[in-house]
């Protein structure tokens, strides 16, 4: 049958034209068809008349749901999906521009690159950028030196003689000032 059909494409075309007529609701002509094709066309006609959609009970419910959803969608603003990435890019660009030209950013680490007032309001930013600032920053970041404790003899003397005043600035011995 396959080779037979391959040899007769016109027969297949004619048959398909008849099927198109059936689907469009017209009665196809029976002339020019072999008996077996006529029976097949008749069966196709019967097949086209089957309409199971009449048995559906959920059609109205589904229609109501779709109507509600479609009205919800149409009430809200409609954004085309292709516009969403562009809109996101524009928002990001606006945010970056707002940060870059923000005159109120005073913190040195948050200072905007194009903000002139940022240098005025934050002089430490100038210090950090100057060539001498490196040593200054290093000095500041070094740990503080330990505070020297008072001399032990002075403290012990005060405890040994509670009535005597504590020498606050004990004078160095006169021997140190004498010249040889």
């Amino acid at each position, binding site marked *: *049958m396959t080779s037979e*059909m391959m040899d007769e*494409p016109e027969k*297949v*075309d004619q*048959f*398909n034209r008849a*099927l*198109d007529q059936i*689907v*469009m609701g017209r009665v196809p002509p029976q002339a020019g068809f072999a008996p*077996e094709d006529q*029976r*097949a*066309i008749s*069966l*196709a006609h*019967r*097949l*086209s008349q*089957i*309409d*199971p*959609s*009449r*048995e*559906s*009970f*959920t*059609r109205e419910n*589904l*229609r109501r749901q*779709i*109507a509600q*959803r*479609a*009205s919800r*969608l*149409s009430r809200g603003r*409609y954004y*085309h*999906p292709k516009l969403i990435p562009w809109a996101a890019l524009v928002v990001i660009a606006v945010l970056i521009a707002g940060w870059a030209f923000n005159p109120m950013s005073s913190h040195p680490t948050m200072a905007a690159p194009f903000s002139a007032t940022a240098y005025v309001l934050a002089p430490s930013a100038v210090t950090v950028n100057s060539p001498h600032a490196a040593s200054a920053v290093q000095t500041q970041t070094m740990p503080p030196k330990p505070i020297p404790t008072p001399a032990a003899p002075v403290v012990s003397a005060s405890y040994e003689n509670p009535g005597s005043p504590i020498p606050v600035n004990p004078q160095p011995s006169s021997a140190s000032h004498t010249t040889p």
Partner: protein
Amino acid sequence: MSTKAEFIHRTSTSFLEEVDDTRLFDPRDFLAVYDAYFPRVYNYIRYRCGDMVVAEDLTAAVFERALNHFATYRPERAPFGAWLFTIARNLVSNHLRAERNHTWMPLDEVDSHPLPALSPEDAVIQSQTEKELLTALACLDERGQDVLSLKFAARLTNRRIAEITGLSESNVGVILYRAIHHLREIFDDQRNDGRTREG
């Protein structure tokens, strides 16, 4: 009726008409889409699945998915019907893949819901014929079922079927030719078996 709704109505009623509309749709027009396409989508799924309840569920899923992705539809790429039936076809394929082990086909619902406009005798005859035809349809191979359903339930042209299935138009014509002849053989065999059993 808005212009878009008119467009959808026109393209759905005249299935042979070529669609060339590059406008985007408004969600409010989707009701017109639903009204125009529901019977064809439902019938297509019913032809493929054979179960009324499954057909209803899948039809609802098709329209839900179409509504969710309504904004992504590009009229310049494919007609709306082809787009909608591509969704339906994918859902049916997924369902059939999931339910591959089920070889039974409950068709009793066809008997329980005869046509209200027909007389009881005609309704019984028609429902019996429907049952036999749908049973015979289920005996075809998957591609034959798919193409026949797209042709007679979805009422698409061979060109649209070719676009949806990825086959060539001439191949669709040959598949339709063979499938209908095969369906007729199965249908005749079923009737002969029934008569033999009755006799």
